[in-house]
């Protein structure tokens, strides 16, 4: 626990750690302010098809909708911000030379690497929660609350979620988003144990995510057949908490697949780092 605390102190003493938080704050604030200013246009574009046949009243463009909208838009960018820290977590010790002070201490490498991994997960959770809280708080301030009208995941359809049940669903969705991002963080962490600087792990992780996303979305049968085997297919499983009814079984299997990825990646990182010769 002490090691985790030290890693946390180190992580949050570096300005790099706050890049992610700053970028998220900037994006969320700009997006929500622009959405507020363009509310009429967004509502029109959002509802123009429905408004032909339905009379729609109530606060459709509300804080919850804005949160879901930003989450949808940012799920490709958040991994990048996570890799900034996760990819640097182990490699920075090599870059700065502090690894030579750290690994000659009594705690085993396994404990040190576990502490670093836990800290990486804390950071990941913190970043996603920060995004969620900022989206919701600013969204509620600018747009107010209301029921959530959202697209049904993966198939045609509209879902209407009552305001009362949204907070719990959002909480679950953000927990799931954290779970997804932990897999991305685990990739960056593994690459970080292999590298001597943070550039490689950051670029490497993003390359993996982007390539897997492209392969998974390529409109050819061969690539479609690969989709179930790509972890990126499950990264957006948090959205399923906004489905009605909540597809628990699919959520469970997606969470299990991502969880197994994370565990496996961590175990590889552990194995690699425990045997690694520190030459730097």
């Amino acid at each position: 626990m002490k090691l985790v605390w030290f890693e946390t102190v180190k992580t949050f003493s570096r300005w790099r750690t706050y890049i992610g938080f700053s970028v998220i704050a900037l994006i969320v604030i700009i997006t929500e302010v622009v959405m507020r200013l363009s509310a009429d246009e967004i509502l029109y574009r959002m509802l123009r098809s429905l408004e032909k046949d339905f009379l729609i009243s109530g606060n459709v463009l509300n804080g919850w909708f804005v949160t879901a909208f930003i989450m949808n838009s940012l799920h490709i960018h958040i991994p990048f911000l996570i890799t900034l820290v996760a990819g640097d977590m182990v490699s920075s010790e090599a870059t700065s030379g502090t690894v030579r002070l750290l690994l000659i201490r009594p705690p085993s490498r396994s404990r040190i690497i576990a502490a670093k991994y836990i800290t990486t997960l804390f950071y990941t959770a913190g970043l996603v929660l920060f995004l969620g809280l900022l989206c919701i708080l600013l969204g509620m301030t600018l747009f107010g609350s209301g029921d959530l009208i959202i697209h049904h995941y993966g198939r045609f359809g509209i879902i209407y979620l009552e305001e009362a049940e949204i907070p719990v669903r959002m909480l679950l969705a953000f927990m799931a988003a954290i779970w997804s991002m932990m897999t991305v963080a685990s990739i960056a962490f593994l690459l970080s144990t292999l590298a001597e600087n943070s550039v490689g792990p950051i670029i490497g992780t993003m390359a993996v995510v982007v390539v897997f996303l492209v392969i998974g979305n390529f409109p050819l049968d061969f690539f479609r057949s690969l989709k179930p085997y790509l972890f990126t297919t499950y990264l957006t499983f948090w959205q399923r908490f906004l489905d009605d009814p909540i597809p628990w079984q699919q959520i469970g299997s997606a969470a299990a697949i991502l969880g197994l990825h994370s565990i496996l990646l961590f175990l590889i990182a552990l194995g690699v780092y425990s045997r690694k010769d520190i030459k730097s």
Partner: protein
Amino acid sequence: MWFIYVLLLFSAGWAFAQDDAVRYLDALERKYSALKDYTVDVRVHFDMEGFNAPDMQARLYFKPPDKMKVESKKVFFFPKEGGIFNPFMFKKEAFDIRLLEEMTYDNRKAVKLKLYPKDTKKMKQSFVLILDIESHQIREFHTSSEEKEVKGVIEYGKFKEFDLPTRIELHLDLPFKESFEMREFGQPAAVPQRVTGKVEISYSNYRVNSGLRDEMFGSPKKKK
């Protein structure tokens, strides 16, 4: 010669039928002529494919000829066609009317009329109405255009001197194009889809002729 006779006979029959059809709409208009406005609580139950929503409640305000307003604390969806009871929309001057059938509906005398809008720029779809000609009630309506089809069945209750709906069951078959704002990453490109299903609307707590002012309906929205 007999051919001309038959033709004249049919023409006369058609003219009489046309007169009857107009008379039915006229009777309907007269029946509700004293209705100046109404307010009603509605509860909407959706049973539509691709539209998962709980029952919704709202207060609906209506003032002839076509002013309407919905008040709801929550997000509220309400079918425009058929959801709002508006007996004033079937003005005899606005349609070419054909009597399709004289019939019995719920053991009462009824007629089936087809209404073709005269101004097709203003109104694109035609209507088929089943009118109870004993109590001058629209019992069923069916409207269709190239794009959409709406069918409604109306049940009535008595509120003051007016027969007003207590329940309307709508069957919808509508086109739907999702907007990009509602689509997430990784979804296939949106293709036009249809929304089909049933909407059941219950009406309660009518307040009739309470003197709703025009201002409360606001000015029509300008859309970009």
